[in-house]
């Protein structure tokens, strides 16, 4: 008789498996999960929760990613098996095929607006910082836009690398420095040399003679035009004076 009761008591001494509490907290939405994914950019650490992808970084190790996440995002983080389909969604997002959900809680409304606007820049194109500022209704806040983009918690996925200075300087990049930014843009098909040659000559906009529309030089609109039909402008007033209107796709200036 005592042996059965003694055995049962031992059954009560069993410990929960390692990481159990963290998994529960993640399921309750109180912790984010993360895993490392092999992508076109190499291994990228990605964190997610039930609202969507919450952070990404090309960290060297789990420890480095966890530390960065703790300092930058401030929530709990648990290494986990990714849900089915996340790997392919990540690939699609990086190739511009599909949009994924992001969790931008914890960022200021201004930063959120900047990042949401950045998501609208198509792959293979770039925009100046001032464009974001104008589009989100804070035309004077160009520097603040730069700060918000530099602190983008989800680089690569939210394409802050597609925002560059209007003088053609590539600018700094939170996702791995200016070199990484150049590499990613080249990977996406941006002709950096052409872009920088134009910027150095002070030419910001590109117009097409046949349509009388002017665009940012990377805009896909008018891509089919013949080379001899391109004209270039230093600024908006020059383009308008020549009888050109701003493109409705890349919106280089407010449509009058």
């Amino acid at each position, binding site marked *: 008789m005592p042996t059965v009761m003694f055995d*049962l008591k031992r*059954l*009560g001494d069993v*410990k*929960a*498996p390692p990481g159990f509490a963290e998994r529960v907290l993640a399921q309750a939405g*109180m912790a984010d999960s993360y895993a490392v994914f092999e992508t076109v950019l190499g291994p990228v650490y990605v964190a997610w929760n039930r609202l969507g992808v919450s952070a990404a970084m090309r960290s060297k190790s789990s420890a480095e990613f966890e530390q960065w996440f703790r300092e930058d995002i401030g929530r709990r983080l648990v290494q986990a098996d990714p849900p089915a389909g996340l790997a392919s969604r990540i690939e699609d997002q990086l190739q511009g095929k599909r949009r994924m959900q992001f969790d931008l809680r914890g960022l200021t409304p201004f930063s959120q607006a900047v990042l949401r606007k950045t998501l609208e820049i198509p792959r293979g194109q770039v925009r100046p910082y001032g464009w974001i500022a104008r589009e989100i209704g804070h035309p004077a806040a160009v520097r603040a836009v730069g700060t918000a983009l530099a602190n983008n918690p989800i680089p690569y996925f939210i394409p802050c690398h597609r925002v560059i200075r209007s003088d053609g300087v590539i600018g700094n990049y939170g996702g791995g420095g200016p070199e990484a930014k150049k590499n990613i843009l080249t990977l996406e098909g941006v002709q950096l040399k052409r872009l920088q040659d134009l910027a150095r000559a002070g030419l910001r906009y590109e117009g097409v003679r046949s349509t009388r529309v002017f665009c940012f030089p990377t805009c896909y609109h008018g891509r089919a035009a013949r080379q001899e039909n391109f004209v270039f402008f230093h600024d908006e007033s020059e383009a308008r004076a020549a009888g050109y209107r701003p493109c409705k796709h890349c919106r280089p200036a407010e449509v009058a």
Partner: protein
Amino acid sequence: MEVTERAFERLVRDHQDRIFALGLALTGNRHDAEEVAQDTFLRAYRALVTYAPERVRDLKQKAWLHQIAVNVVRNRVRGNRPRLVELNGSEPDARTGPEEDVMRKAEIDELAARVACLPPRYREAVVLRHVQELSYAEVADALGQPVGTVKANVHRGLKLLRGEDHADGDV
């Protein structure tokens, strides 16, 4: 909200071993035990966020969690029947803590599987009383049964575990 989250994290850390052990004894394998324990805490969380702070503070956590866990197991059995393969033996599990050596783990799992084979009403009573070591009054509370019923079920359950004849005990 912030307060509830901190209270919940404490709740999980304080009771995870106890509730996992309960799941193991009631289901007979570690895989289902983890599912039961996770479900239990998630249900607890969903309830906690609706409670007023005083109610959270005055909660008898242990009894409350046991009650939830028993209901989770009851609902599972109703929904998806446990797979027989798992009831018969111990599953290999990579997530075993270093504190449990292989021999001991195998013994424990075998015992858990035996307990899980008891009829539900005996199993619940025996597990809460002798694995979780609740008082008869607490067991009665958690199961929503009179103390006398619980005592009788514990007695019969132990008899079955010892391999004594079931019919004998009922006479």
